[in-house]
């Protein structure tokens, strides 16, 4: 008995013909809950393209997420997925990776989930350099609860809890995780799907903590509140305000405030956390940690 | 309601009307020996309790429970351990009226002396406490006092101040006979850091031969 009142009758044949990645979806869960024009669709496609080009095995993939629009992604992809509580995705992902280091673990999160309620877990996961790939879809607003300011909302931007414009100073997520010790970081917008998928591939292949920020549009709340009513106008804004990290040197600090700096920022080697635990187990017990021991002990 | 304990009798009494008392006499209270050791953190007070408890249970095959209490300070705060030893099962694990009180700091003397049982044994390190402040209590309750300068012995005879607690275990073993010498030595070897066994056994013997 399977009840599924959230899906409606839709013909997916055209999707399958048009989208080469539809094979990775739980088709019985489509359509998604995402608003039309949301940047999550572009992000999922970019992720799947990056994943395919990384050469990794989809059957070995586990997805973990917290709460928010972006955290609904794992529920639509046909692999093991853990949809947890608000902000805690990285702590769950840490337990999953340590419990079975053979799994490839990817975390989908948003600006509120990762940087507000989950900020502490974010910096500590980066500090440990645990092999997780974090895809943070930053739409500068809380979409699921109806358009409140987030820790990345630009100063002056409007939201239901900032009717006079935000007076908070936004986080620069890349600077934050870089300072905390991430070994791969990149930032792109949904106007850069090819570069994004390439960075996701690089992040997946990095044996350490990888953080990819996707500046994404929320036309429903951010756009409507901030005079960017259509997805097209938002993507146009992303294109116009993006600046490659190589060109940053020519701009003043004030000029940079209105820009989105894109590119890959960190790509370095540092010993990975679950490897260290495996080495310790090897040293003390003569073997790797036991996989799936609950079924035998 | 007031209470007194005489041997294995526990007597409750309450004055109902002038001169008329209500008595409840409980017999068969267990013959559990209660030891309380008080000092300050860093003296090894708790380890000495662990050694006595371990000697009694694992090597003398009696029953024993060791509990402890300490403050929030990592070092230097008040530290206390209690050890109960009995041939029977021990239910209530805390000392109520210790038979033996071992005192390694003046603060502990002031805090715990009043709990000591009538005709109980009080062992102190005279270099760390001023016994005269409780001289009335001692005479009134016929307390049997032993002065064991364990810190001095540890420093001068063994050359390690930190084994004062083990010297004290030797003293307790001799005076109370609650644990056997053999069990005490086995428990010490089982509890102290590897390589320090000989020094600790010497410390134990110095304490044991003090009385």
């Amino acid at each position, binding site marked *: 008995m399977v009840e599924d009142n959230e899906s409606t009758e839709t013909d997916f044949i055209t999707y399958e013909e048009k989208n080469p990645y539809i094979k990775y979806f739980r088709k019985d869960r489509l359509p998604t809950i995402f608003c039309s024009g949301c940047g999550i669709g572009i992000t999922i496609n970019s992720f799947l393209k990056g994943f395919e080009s990384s050469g990794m095995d989809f059957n070995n993939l586990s997805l973990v997420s917290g709460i928010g629009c972006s955290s609904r992604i794992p529920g639509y992809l046909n692999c093991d997925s853990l949809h947890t509580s608000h902000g805690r995705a990285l*702590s769950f992902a840490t337990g999953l990776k340590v419990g079975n280091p053979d799994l490839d673990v990817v975390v989908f999160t948003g600006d509120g989930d990762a940087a507000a309620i989950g900020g502490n877990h974010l910096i500590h996961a980066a500090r440990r350099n645990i092999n997780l790939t974090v895809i943070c879809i930053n739409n500068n607003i809380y979409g699921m609860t109806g358009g409140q300011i987030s820790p990345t909302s630009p100063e002056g931007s409007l939201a239901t809890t900032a009717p006079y414009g935000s007076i908070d100073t936004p986080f620069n997520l890349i600077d934050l995780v870089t300072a905390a010790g991430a070994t791969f970081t990149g930032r792109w917008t949904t106007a850069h799907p090819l570069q994004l998928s390439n960075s996701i591939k690089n992040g997946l292949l990095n044996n350490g903590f990888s953080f990819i920020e996707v500046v994404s549009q929320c036309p429903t709340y951010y756009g409507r509140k901030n005079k960017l009513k259509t997805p097209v106008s938002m993507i146009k804004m992303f294109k116009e305000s993006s600046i490659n990290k190589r060109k940053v040197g020519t701009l003043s600090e004030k000029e940079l405030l209105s820009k989105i700096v894109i590119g890959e920022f960190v790509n370095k080697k540092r010993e990975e956390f679950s490897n260290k635990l495996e080495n310790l187990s090897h040293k003390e017990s003569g073997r790797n940690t036991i996989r799936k021991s609950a079924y035998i002990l | 309601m007031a209470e007194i304990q005489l041997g294995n009798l526990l007597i409750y009494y309450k004055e109902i009307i002038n001169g008329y008392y209500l008595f409840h006499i409980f017999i068969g209270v267990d013959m559990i020996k209660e030891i309380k050791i008080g000092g300050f953190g860093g003296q090894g007070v708790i380890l000495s309790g662990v050694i006595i408890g371990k000697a009694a249970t694992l090597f003398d095959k009696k029953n024993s429970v060791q509990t402890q209490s300490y403050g929030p300070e990592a070092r230097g705060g008040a530290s206390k351990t209690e050890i109960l030893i009995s041939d029977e099962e021990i239910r209530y694990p805390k000392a109520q009226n210790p038979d033996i009180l071992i005192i390694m700091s003046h603060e502990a003397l002031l805090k715990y002396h009043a709990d000591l049982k009538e005709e109980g044994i009080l062992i102190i390190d005279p270099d760390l406490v001023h016994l005269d402040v409780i001289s009335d209590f001692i005479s009134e309750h016929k307390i049997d006092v032993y002065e064991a300068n364990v810190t001095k012995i540890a420093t001068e005879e063994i050359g390690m101040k930190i084994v004062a607690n083990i010297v004290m275990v030797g003293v307790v073993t001799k005076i109370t006979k609650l644990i056997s010498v053999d069990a005490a030595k086995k428990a010490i070897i089982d509890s102290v850091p590897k390589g320090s066994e000989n020094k600790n056994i010497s410390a134990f013997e110095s304490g044991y031969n003090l009385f």
Partner: protein
Amino acid sequence: MTKELFIQGNEACARGAIEAGCRFFGGYPITPSTEIAEYLSTTLPEVSGSFIQMEDELSAIGAVIAASWSGVKSMTATSGPGFSLMQENIGFAMMSETPLVVVDVQRGSPSTGQPTMSGQGDMMQARWGSHGDYEPIAISPSSVQEFFDFTVLGFNLAEKYRVPVIILADEVIGHMREKVRLPDNVETFKRIMPKEDPKDFLPFKNVRNGTNPMPAFGDGYNIHVTGLTHNELGYPITINPKVHSNLVRRLVNKILKNRKDIVSCDFKYCDDADIVLISYGSPVRSIMETVKIGRSSGIKLGYLKINTPYPFPEDEVVKIAKNVNDLMVVEMNLGQMFHEIERVASSNAGVHLFSEIGGTLPKPNDILDRILELL
């Protein structure tokens, strides 16, 4: 040959966990539970397990839940303030049916309270601490031996019923040293892998006994685990009343309908008793002593020792209440289990409360004083 040790309760708990098959610990230091983490940080690597000190208790319980889904028996240990932080994801573990063990070595509370002293102020938090309807299993040891045995039992019940199990210990038991007999063979409940093909398997099926087999991540079942209300496939279905009702009722009933298998109590001298003392955890030691003294002087006392505060041993309490004049609940709080006992027993017997707060065990003589007032 069984091995005998003279060890602290917290060490006995950690040793019990290893014997029960625990191979993952995620935690955050807190007095008076820290010795459990310290012992496991040494021992887990020696048995090919993993120890991780997390950044807080919020993440500790998260890591433990996910480690359990990776296919490893997992636990954490904490005290009141950390237990409060874990409530969010204890609810997630209830909803997602994740086997794990949370050890709460209770201290004086509320708030940071008395870190080095004992208390039993978390009893109702263990029952109702996370939001929503759920049925926890909670076990309270009253000796160092029981802290070992009940930790093993906790893991076995967690796996058998796919629930988080809470070991509600307290500072006295955590820090006390006593003799422990370590058995040669510890019976463990091994996790059950589904027999069905992944495409035919419903991970959250409404089965009669309530508990489904549990695949691990990476086994090809492509399972979706969520804290949202979900259907039998695990997919979020959040606005259908029937789906929610079926799910939550199954989760609650899988414990309640197996109450007989889970509940454990010990009682002594209750047959002819006038007054029965009831307790759990370390104050059990006080009531045992009180009964011993009372009986030896002709006062007809008995005691009921509750090993499993949850599911609450309703039938056992009622049965005893029918045979006695009075019940006296002895606990280290201002009355928490007292209200449960009063709820089920007050129509059959007088129910009285002996509270001890401040951090020390109730003294048998003080309990006797109260009993003499009742006689």
